[in-house]
């Protein structure tokens, strides 16, 4: 049993719903009790969709359990097929139905329908949403392509040359309730079109079963969201010989690498101008602009899904000149990659589902900016640290009306703005530094962006709360203690660097074995770290 107050991912059948709802002509019969219908609101309210997800729930009740639930399932399947006339039917169960073992998938297959029926077995007590989405997409593609001739030895990604046509690729992985997927697809499509590469199929987002059947007419696959499409890409490679891209084009460097990779896969030459790094995105120049000097070494903490944290750590470190002080993910499937990335930065990755553990880690590493999910936004707010959201789980705020991709050149521009705006701008930070003795720039200074500005983290820690107590009690006995004089010296330091100074001073005091921190210790520490 795991105690959760909040969870980053829903159960696996929510992942299946994401695939079904992303597509056209697919219907999902879900054996589930009535309360599970709440899931519709994820699509109709959070994603603001004007259609209900194409899901028929059997909504069985306790009194049905004594009788023939199998008949009930069949009745719902029959009605759903008659009413919605899908081109393909997904059949599965939620956690409760899994326990009563009706096997709705085989029931459906026995009903004699002509349409393809994909039976989903998504273990609800051990797996989660992204896994469920990946498995559903994989089962669906496999189910629809099972009669296609296998041709792995013959597939040649450069065949377009001899056939006298433009190369074409599939974009795999974008789905509803994915972070900015809608705009990512447009952006990647735009970039590929610019390079003379056509899109064969985008799936699951917007695809119909008939499109899935055309998947192997492409020269190569682009795995846009490995959480959802990697297992499918691997299967397509194994069965049809389709190569797929491994780079996710988020950030200037990654977009370049991605273009290189796809050109190579297709046997194309990358035009020279692309190689001049980042001429296409403003991020590169904005980051070099003198105003951005203040970004140097800003301490950032990164947490979210695997794909977005990997991209974020590269951008933070290589393109914005930040110092990454924490890196983690809730995507266990991507734990290895995230661990490797963390190691390269000299960090240990945080792989967890527990948002309180993430909050503790944020506090411990005292960052100046958090890049996280909506939950980290709340944690950061409590700690008085600015935050930008980079990953699912979805919140209505993450479905903006404006065009705001994360991928490609425009994505890099969006990221620059989204990450930098929660911070003070360079010019401002300089001015406040220069005028810090002015009465206007005392502790009360608050950001119009809502971060706690003057509220220092230490004030927050005084609020009684169980997880904070837990943090304190886990601190070692010899943890240095601030004298009132030390505290008042610390208070003179501008708030935006105070957290860092506190942290460094404590680290220094620990190193030299000093138990009490006064004003002198603070100055010693400053000298020590400057030296």
């Amino acid at each position, binding site marked *: *049993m*795991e*105690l*959760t*107050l*909040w*969870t980053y*991912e*829903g*159960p696996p*059948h*929510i992942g299946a719903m994401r695939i079904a709802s992303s597509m056209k002509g697919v219907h999902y019969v879900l054996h589930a*009790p*009535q*309360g*599970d*219908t*709440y*899931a*519709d*609101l*994820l699509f*109709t*309210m*959070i994603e*603001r*969709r*004007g*259609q*209900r997800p194409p899901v*028929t*729930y*059997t*909504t*069985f*009740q*306790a009194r049905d*359990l004594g009788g023939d639930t199998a008949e009930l399932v069949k009745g*719902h399947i029959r*009605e759903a097929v008659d*009413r919605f006339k899908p081109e393909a039917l997904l059949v599965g169960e*939620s*956690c*409760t139905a899994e*326990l*009563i073992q009706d096997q709705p998938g085989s029931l459906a297959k026995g009903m004699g329908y002509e349409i393809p029926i994909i039976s989903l077995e998504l*273990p*609800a*007590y*051990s797996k*989660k949403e992204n896994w469920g989405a990946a498995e559903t997409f994989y089962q669906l593609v496999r189910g629809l392509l099972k009669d296609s001739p296998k041709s792995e030895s013959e597939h040649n990604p450069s065949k377009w040359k001899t056939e006298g046509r433009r190369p074409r690729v599939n974009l795999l992985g974008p789905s509803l309730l994915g972070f900015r997927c809608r705009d990512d697809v447009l952006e990647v499509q735009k970039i590929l079109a610019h390079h003379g590469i056509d899109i064969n199929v985008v799936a699951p987002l917007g695809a119909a079963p008939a499109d899935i059947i055309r998947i192997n007419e492409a020269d190569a696959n682009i795995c846009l969201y490995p959480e959802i499409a990697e297992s499918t890409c691997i299967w397509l490679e194994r069965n049809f010989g389709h190569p797929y891209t491994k780079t996710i084009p988020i950030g200037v460097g990654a977009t370049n690498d991605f273009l290189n990779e796809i050109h190579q896969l297709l046997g194309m030459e990358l035009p020279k101008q692309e190689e001049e790094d980042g001429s296409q995105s403003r991020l590169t120049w904005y980051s070099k602009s003198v105003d951005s000097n203040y970004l140097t070494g800003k301490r950032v903490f990164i947490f979210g899904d695997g794909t977005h944290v990997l991209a974020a750590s590269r951008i933070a470190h290589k393109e914005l000149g930040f110092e990454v002080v924490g890196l983690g993910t809730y995507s266990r499937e991507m734990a290895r990659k995230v661990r490797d990335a963390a190691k390269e930065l000299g960090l240990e990755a945080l792989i967890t589902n527990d948002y309180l553990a993430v909050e503790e880690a944020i506090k411990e590493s005292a960052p100046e900016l958090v890049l996280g999910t*909506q939950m980290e936004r*709340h944690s950061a707010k*409590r700690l008085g640290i600015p935050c930008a959201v980079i990953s699912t789980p979805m*919140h209505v705020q993450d479905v903006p009306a404006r065009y705001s991709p994360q991928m490609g050149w425009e994505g890099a521009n969006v990221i620059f703005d989204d990450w930098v705006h929660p911070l003070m701008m360079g010019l401002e930070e300089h001015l406040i530094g220069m005028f810090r003795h002015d009465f206007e720039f005392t502790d009360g200074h608050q950001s119009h962006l809502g971060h706690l500005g003057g509220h220092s983290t230490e004030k927050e820690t005084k609020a009684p*709360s*169980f*997880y904070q*107590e*837990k943090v304190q009690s886990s601190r070692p006995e010899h943890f240095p203690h601030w004298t009132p004089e030390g505290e008042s010296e610390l208070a003179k330091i501008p708030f935006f660097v105070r957290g860092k100074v506190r942290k460094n001073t404590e680290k220094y005091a620990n190193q030299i074995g000093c138990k009490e921190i006064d004003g002198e210790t603070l100055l010693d520490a400053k000298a020590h770290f400057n030296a």
Partner: protein
Amino acid sequence: MSGASLLKETGPREVFCGLTSIVWLHRRMPDAFFLVVGSRTCAHLIQSAAGVMIFAEPRFGTAILEERDLAGLADAHEELDRVVKNLLTRRPEIRTLFLVGSCPSEVIKIDLARAAERLNSQFNGKVTILNYSGSGIETTFTQGEDGALKAFVPLMPSSDKKQLLLVGTLANAVEDRLITIFKRLGIENVDSFPPRQSTELPSIGPETKVLLTQPYLTDTARVLKDRGAEILPAPFPLGVEGSRLWIEAAAKSFNVDQSLVTSTLEPLILRARKALKPYIEKLTGKKLFLLPESQLEIPLARFLHMECGMELLEIGTPYLNRDMMKPELDLLPDKTRIVEGQHVEKQLDRVRKNQPDLVVCGMGLANPLEAEGFSTKWSIEMVFSPIHGIDQASDLAELFSRPLHRHDLLNTKQLTST
């Protein structure tokens, strides 16, 4: 019984399960904690329905069952004890802990009553541990509150004092207001259930007269009756008339002089009618369709018809307790179509055919209906908003006229061109 035509429907439903009522119960009793023993789905449901992220310290959580808990039931009990102990050490301020049953815990038959008993003896009075079911195979939406209150009843002290007990969660301000009105009528002993602190349970006995404030408390009403209380039959306190009849039911039972009742309520009623006026103009003649969800559908429809002049196309309700609803049904016009249960697809077909001006529905259905051109109102808003009592009647009407107003604002061109 009235001339309403009562129909039953079965098929796919689109209703929240009883777990959802945790969302308002935890606000009512800040010293209580609600621990769902369930699956990741249950956790995701409360998170999605409650917008958990807005609470820094939610007073509810889920003990998520995992593969190994399913394997051996004895272990599940040990695991539950461990989780509860952890929780209570981390949150020493908790006075009452509700173990809330879910579909999975019921299907695999985890005996939460036994678990509560065991944990109660371990915690020895420091914390009270109770259990009830909020599962979707047993309960819909608001029925969870019924379960939670019913679990409290055996703990209520007995008393022979003559008193009025208001039963059902109300907004604090509304409750204070209603109690003031009863005091003006000379009814001094008024208590409410659930209390604002889980440890301050009201007493109960043969001289207790109960006024239900919410229509979904069937089981609670029954066990209160078993403790000797008298449930006063009345419509529910929504709208001017409903509230007046509801207050009068208590006044009658406490032998309050009718002239005092009239002189106390009349000014309130006049003021409320005046406040209602602009909304009546907006609502009158408009066609209303209520999909089943909160159990408030019948009293709401009665108010919107009787006092606001709306035309009732259909009233859906998840289940119908004919006894408890009789005073409401009597006030409805003949042939009002009341549908108990649901077949969501057929119901939506009827919505499309009947072309209502306003649809009251669950959160999952609202935007798709808006996209088809219907104005909608979320049912769940009614269980969060202070809508009870004479003084709130105009606020209640405003909730329904706002979507129509908005519709006019945004569709003026369309309206004038037709």
